[in-house]
C-alpha cells in the first residue's frame, strides 16, 4: 500500500486562478439558492419601501427628508453596529438601549450640571459604556449566566440608573454647541465632496491593491470587471448621497441656509470602516467568527474564548454609548426615555434585517447600516403618512419577525444543501 514518496508538487492549482464574470455571477446565484442571502433582502426591502413611500407621499423623496433619514436613524444604527458583535457569538444584549441611555445621562450630567468641557463628558460617557460592557461580559463569560438573563436584568437596572442620574422625571438639556452639532449640524459642501472623494479613493486603492497582489501571487481572484463594478457602485452611491445632501433644504434661504452632509454621517462611515477592518482583517475578528461558529474548535485552536466573549460586550456597550451621545445631541436633552421604548428592538431588528444571524457566526457591521436604513425608512415613511404609533410598532415588529424568519429559513435551506 505504501506509495512512492511524493515530493510536494509545486503549486498544484486547487482553484482556477482567474474566474470569468460569468462564473462569478453563477457562483453568486448558487450561493443565493443555497440559502446564503447576504444583504439581498435588506436591499430589496429598501428599494420596495422607498418606491412605495415616494408614490404615496411625494414629500418622502425630498432632499430635506433624505437628510432626516440619516439623523433619525443614526442612534439606532450605531447601537446595531455594536450589537452585531454580540450576535456574532450567538449571544444577545437586551440592555444596549438603556446602556445608551445611561451613557447619555452621564454625558448630560457632566456637561450641563457639572459644567465640564464637552470632550471630557464625551470620553466619560464612552468609558461608562466600556465599563458596562466589561461587567456584562464578565458575568456571561466568567460566571456563566446566560446573556439573555444578564442583559434582561441590566435592561431593568439601567432604566433605574437613568432615572437616578437625572433625578426622577425631569430632563437635562444638552446645550453645548460641539455636542449639539453632532446630530444637528452639517459639513460645508466642499468638505462633504472632499471626504467622499477620499473615501471612494481609499476604497478603490484597497480593492485594486488586493487584486494586484493576489493575481501576482497566482491566487484565485475576483474578475477585474467585478472589482471595477464594486468600486463604481461605491462611487455612485457616495456621489449621489453627497449631491442630494448638498442641495439647499431650507424653505426660505433668505432666513437661513441648510445644506451639507450631516456631521453624524462621516462618523458612522468612519466607525463602519474601523469595525469592518477589525472583523475582516485582524486575527481578533477571525477569532470572533470562530467562537461564534464553534466554541470548542476555537478553544482547541488556542483562542482565549472568555476574552473574546467579554470583548464583544465591551464593543457593544461602547457603541451603545456612541449611540446615546448621538441621541442626546439630536434631542438636545436626556430624559428617562432616552434609549428606551423601541430603541433596542429597532437596533436588534436593524442587525437582523441587514442579514446578521441570530444563531451566531454570520454577520457584518454593514448589515447594521443596511438594516438601520430599512428601520429608519419605515419609521420615517409611516410618520409622513400620519400613521399612529400603534401602526408603526405593529409594522416594524412584523418586519423584524419577517427578517428573523428569513434568517431561520435560509439557515434551514443552507443545512439542507450542505452549506452550513
Amino acid at each position, binding site marked *: *500500500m*505504501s*506509495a*512512492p*514518496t*511524493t515530493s*510536494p*508538487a509545486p*503549486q*498544484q492549482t*486547487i*482553484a482556477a486562478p482567474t474566474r470569468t464574470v460569468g462564473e462569478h455571477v453563477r457562483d453568486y446565484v448558487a450561493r443565493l439558492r*443555497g440559502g446564503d442571502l447576504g444583504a439581498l433582502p435588506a436591499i430589496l426591502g429598501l428599494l420596495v419601501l422607498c418606491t412605495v413611500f415616494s408614490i404615496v407621499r411625494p414629500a418622502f423623496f425630498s432632499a430635506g427628508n433624505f437628510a432626516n433619514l440619516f439623523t433619525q436613524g443614526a442612534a439606532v444604527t450605531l447601537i446595531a453596529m455594536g450589537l452585531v458583535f454580540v450576535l456574532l457569538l450567538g449571544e444577545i444584549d437586551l440592555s444596549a438601549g438603556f446602556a445608551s441611555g445611561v451613557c447619555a445621562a452621564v454625558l448630560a450630567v457632566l456637561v450641563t450640571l457639572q459644567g465640564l468641557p464637552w470632550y471630557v463628558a464625551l470620553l466619560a460617557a464612552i468609558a461608562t459604556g466600556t465599563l458596562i460592557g466589561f461587567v456584562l461580559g464578565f458575568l456571561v463569560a466568567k460566571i456563566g449566566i446566560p446573556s439573555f438573563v444578564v442583559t434582561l436584568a441590566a435592561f431593568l437596572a439601567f432604566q433605574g440608573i437613568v432615572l437616578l442620574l437625572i433625578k426622577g422625571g425631569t430632563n437635562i438639556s444638552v446645550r453645548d454647541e460641539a455636542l449639539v452639532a453632532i446630530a444637528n449640524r452639517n459639513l460645508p459642501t466642499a468638505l462633504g465632496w472632499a471626504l467622499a472623494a477620499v473615501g471612494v479613493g481609499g476604497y478603490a486603492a484597497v480593492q485594486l491593491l488586493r487584486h494586484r*497582489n*493576489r493575481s501576482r*501571487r497566482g*491566487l*484565485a481572484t475576483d474578475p477585474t470587471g467585478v472589482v471595477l463594478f464594486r468600486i463604481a457602485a461605491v462611487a455612485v452611491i457616495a456621489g449621489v448621497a453627497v449631491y442630494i445632501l448638498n442641495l439647499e433644504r431650507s424653505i426660505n434661504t433668505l432666513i437661513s441656509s441648510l445644506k451639507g452632509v450631516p456631521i453624524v454621517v462621516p462618523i458612522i462611515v468612519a466607525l463602519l470602516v474601523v469595525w469592518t477592518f477589525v472583523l475582516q*482583517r*485582524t*486575527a481578533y475578528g*477571525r*477569532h470572533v*467568527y*470562530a467562537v*461564534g*461558529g*464553534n466554541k*470548542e*474548535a*476555537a478553544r*482547541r*485552536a*488556542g*483562542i482565549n474564548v472568555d476574552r473574546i466573549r467579554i470583548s464583544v460586550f465591551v464593543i457593544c456597550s461602547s457603541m451603545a454609548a456612541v449611540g446615546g451621545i448621538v441621541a442626546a445631541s439630536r434631542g438636545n436633552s436626556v430624559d428617562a426615555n432616552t434609549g428606551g421604548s423601541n430603541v433596542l428592538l429597532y437596533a436588534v431588528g436593524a442587525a437582523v434585517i441587514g442579514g446578521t444571524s441570530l444563531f451566531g*457566526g*454570520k454577520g457584518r457591521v454593514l448589515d447594521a447600516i443596511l438594516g438601520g436604513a430599512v428601520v429608519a425608512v419605515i419609521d420615517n415613511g409611516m410618520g409622513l403618512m400620519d400613521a399612529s404609533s400603534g401602526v408603526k410598532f405593529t409594522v416594524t415588529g412584523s418586519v423584524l419577525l419577517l427578517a428573523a424568519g428569513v434568517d431561520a429559513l435560509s439557515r434551514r435551506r*443552507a443545512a439542507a444543501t*450542505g*452549506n*452550513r
Partner: protein
Amino acid sequence: MSATPLLELRGIDKSFGPVQVLRNVDFAVYPGEVTALVGDNGAGKSTLVKCISGIYPTDGGQFFFEGQPVTVNGPRDAAGLGIEVVYQDLALCDNLDIVQNMFLGREKRNGIVLDEATMEQLAGETLAGLSVRTVKSLRQHVSSLSGGQRQTVAIAKAVLWNSKLVILDEPTAALGVAQTAQVLELVRRLADRGLAVVLISHNMNDVFAVSDRIAALYLGRMAAQVKASEINHSQIVELITAGRSGDLGLPPENGAENGAEQAVTVTPGAPQ
C-alpha cells in the same frame, strides 16, 4: 526503519482518582512509520494520546523526544515539539473557509493585518503536497465539504506546522468506504514523507492496510508493540481481547485474572 524512535514513552502511569487507567506503559513511535494504537473500548488509547498531547498530566514515567528527555506540561509544549493531534470530533469551524480553519489561532499577519495571501498560498501548497485534489476552492466554507474532505482539512491543518508527529484518533470512524480509503491513503503519504504517524482505529483491515507497527493496549497496559509484518489478524484480536497471544503479550498472571485484579482496585470495599 530508523533505529531511534521520534517519541518514546517509558513507564507511563495515569490515574483518575482511584481508577488507574494507564500502568507502566511503554510506547515508541518512529519517523516515517505509521504506528497503529489498538485496544478495546476503555483500554486507555485516548487517555494515552491526551497524555502525549499535554492535555492530561502523567503520574509517572518519562518522555523522550528525538532521544532527549522532555517534559510536556500542556498542549503548547506538545505543539512546540511538533506534535499535532487530529481529534475524533475534528474541531473545525463550519462558518469559516478552509484556509481560515487551517490557520485558526495561528494566523499569519503583517503587523496587525491578516496576511491572507500568504496563508492561502501555504494552505494550497500543503494540500497539494498531500496530493489532495478533491476540494474545488480553498475559500469554500467547511460546511460545504463532505466528511472525508473535512477529515482531509483537519489532517492538512495538523501537517501545516512542520509537525513531526501526527496523532489521529479514529479518523475513519464516521466515513464511508471510498472516503476511508482516501484518508488512509493520506495517512500513508504522511509517513512516506518522513513524519511519524499514530493511528487509532478499531478496524483491523484499516490497521493492516497502512501501519508498519501495531501497539495493543489491554486494560491500561501495553500488551505488545510489534511490526505489522510479524503478526496476523487473529493474534491482534487475541492481544486486544485477552492481552496475550502465544508468547506475545502480557505474562500470565498467577491465579487471579488481570481483569479481576482491576475490579478489586476499582471497588476496594467489596472483594469476595
